[in-house]
């Protein structure tokens, strides 16, 4: 008995023999990934339908067999033998035998050397995250200690500082940030002027728009805005740069040469950021005030003199000084976190991405934390 079974133009399966007796499966055509599922289904169906006493799979008509199809044929043999049905391949070409010979049936059925990672329960996750957070905190302290020692060394030996690198990073973190900082600052100043004018107009106190902007910008917004911008631009860039160097073993090369990677890589970035961030902060304050000024003069009908006079009256030297000190602290936070996250990179491209993100998120978090601490302290120490 012959039961031809067409599965498209690619392969043909013919079943010869009677149910329960010796059966011959003739497979011809092209067996590949593209027709793997019909092949498997047809083979299984033939085996279960015929329940042969002896099975011969005739491969003479095969023009091509890929490894996935060869695996399906071997699986058929396994399944037949599992059902105590003797099974053999006949007329297999050298190529077909070659493909089958490459397949290691043990490897296919072998359990993974490591079980698949299972999702953890909530408590384990909380525990792990807490442990990692604590470890991260300790690593950060340790890094800051090392960085401080490197800085002390550099102050005692100024010649050891790579000043050209400092200038390079001052340009990258400072001068290159000016266009976007100008835009952000003018926009912020203008928006605050608009919003505050709407409210102050209700009580006839529009004149205080200039004062509000001056105080807000000099005490809080200028340093914060600048620190956020530098976190996004430079902290991430530091982390990505050092992280990539870690991946490419460039940091190992520095150590092998006897250089301290912190002095070589982190100190120039830190010094550059400490110099430029206060300058950027002053620049941001100025442009925020310009933004408010434009709205005040052109839309709220202030005179130029009134607006400038109101602004100058409300800028305290103490506030300006404390904001600059604050921006130095922000600079230390932003640059240190960027460098530390870079040095923490292990592995490949994904780790660089993860640590770059972490650098931005952590430095932003710490900037806000420092801002809160300064706000509380300054509240008590600000002269009446």
């Amino acid at each position, binding site marked *: 008995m012959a039961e031809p079974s067409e599965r498209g133009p690619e392969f043909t399966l013919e079943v010869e023999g009677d149910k329960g007796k010796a059966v011959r499966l003739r497979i011809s055509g092209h067996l590949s*990934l*593209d027709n793997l599922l019909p092949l498997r289904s047809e083979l299984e169906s033939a085996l279960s339908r015929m329940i042969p006493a002896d099975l011969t799979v005739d491969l003479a008509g095969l023009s091509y067999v890929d490894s996935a199809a060869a*695996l399906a044929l071997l699986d058929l043999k396994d399944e037949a033998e599992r059902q105590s049905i003797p099974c053999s391949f006949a007329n297999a070409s050298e190529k077909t035998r070659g493909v089958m010979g490459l397949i*290691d049936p043990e490897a*296919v059925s072998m359990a993974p050397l490591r079980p698949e990672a299972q999702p953890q329960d909530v408590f384990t996750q909380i525990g792990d995250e807490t442990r990692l957070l604590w470890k991260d905190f300790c690593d950060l302290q340790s890094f800051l200690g090392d960085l401080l020692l490197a800085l002390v060394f550099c102050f005692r030996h100024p010649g050891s500082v790579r000043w050209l690198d400092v200038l390079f990073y001052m340009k990258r973190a400072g001068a290159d940030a000016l266009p976007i900082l100008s835009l952000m600052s003018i926009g912020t100043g203008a928006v605050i002027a608009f919003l505050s004018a709407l409210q102050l107009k209700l009580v006839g106190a529009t004149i205080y728009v200039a004062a509000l902007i001056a105080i807000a910008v000099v005490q809080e917004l200028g340093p914060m805005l600048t620190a956020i911008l530098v976190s996004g631009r430079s902290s991430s860039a530091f982390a990505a740069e050092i992280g990539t160097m870690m991946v490419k073993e460039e940091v190992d090369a520095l150590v092998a040469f006897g250089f301290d990677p912190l002095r070589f890589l982190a100190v120039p970035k830190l010094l550059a950021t400490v110099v430029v961030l206060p300058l950027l902060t002053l620049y941001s304050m100025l442009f925020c005030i310009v933004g408010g000024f434009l709205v005040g003069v052109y839309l709220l009908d202030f005179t130029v003199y009134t607006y400038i006079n109101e602004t100058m009256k409300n800028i305290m030297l103490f506030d300006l000084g404390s904001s600059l000190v604050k921006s130095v602290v922000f600079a230390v936070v932003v640059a240190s976190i960027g460098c530390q996250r870079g040095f923490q990179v292990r592995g490949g*491209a994904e*780790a660089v991405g993860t640590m770059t993100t972490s650098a931005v998120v952590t430095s932003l978090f710490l900037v806000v934390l420092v801002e809160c601490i300064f706000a509380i302290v300054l509240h008590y120490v600000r002269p009446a």
Partner: protein
Amino acid sequence: MASEKALASQGKKPVIEVDRLTAGYGDNIVLEDVSLEVFLGEILVILGESGCGKSTLMKQMIGIYQPFAGQVLINGININTEDEMEQGRLRRHIGVAFQAGALFGSMTLGENVSLPLQEYTDLPEEEIDRIVRMKLGMVNLGGYENHLPEELSGGMQKRAGLARAMALDPRVLFFDEPSAGLDPVTAAELDILIKSINAGMGITMVVVTHELQSIFNIAHRVIMLDKEARGLIAEGDPRELQKHSEDPRVHNFFNRLPSRLKARKI
């Protein structure tokens, strides 16, 4: 083993045809007017000193870069064809084993190998898992499907890269420096693996290397490139070239002899 003309005269079918290819980077021409053929089922080794354009030629064959002039045909289809459907079909039949494995670091070995299967086929997960285990078994990495690439040695990563390159049973397989950076035993094991896959599956292979031992182990035929010639300077059986080539560049390469100029500098 035979030369290109001999293989062609034997009626062997060219799978890859490089036709008057000129290629390079920016204004720098690395290969000029290069033509060659790779025949069905053969292992062709591209060799030459560093900077001679071996990797450039391979990347042109894979279609990673556009040539300045000329074309590369695989099974008669231009590798840089603008017909996306045709290019997709063509790429499905090309596998590339990169120098350092180029495994995706965030994925396990199993996920790395299954990626092309998931993208190019509609097979169910269970079937893909079986094929992945089979492919890893072929490169002696059975059981490693849940390991991350960073947990493996360099040799294991190269083998895993090979398993991924073979995921779709390509008709043509390219290797970039397969034995570079490996110890002699691991390199020899990889050579055996390459040969057995070539013999078992009949895959046409193009291998870029300058490891002499590997060349003698695996090559059916070699072509040698030269930096100054910007193209081919020799072609044929490696042992024949080692013994009988009269070109000093070929002779020096196969016999590990520094050129006179370099020797004087030393």
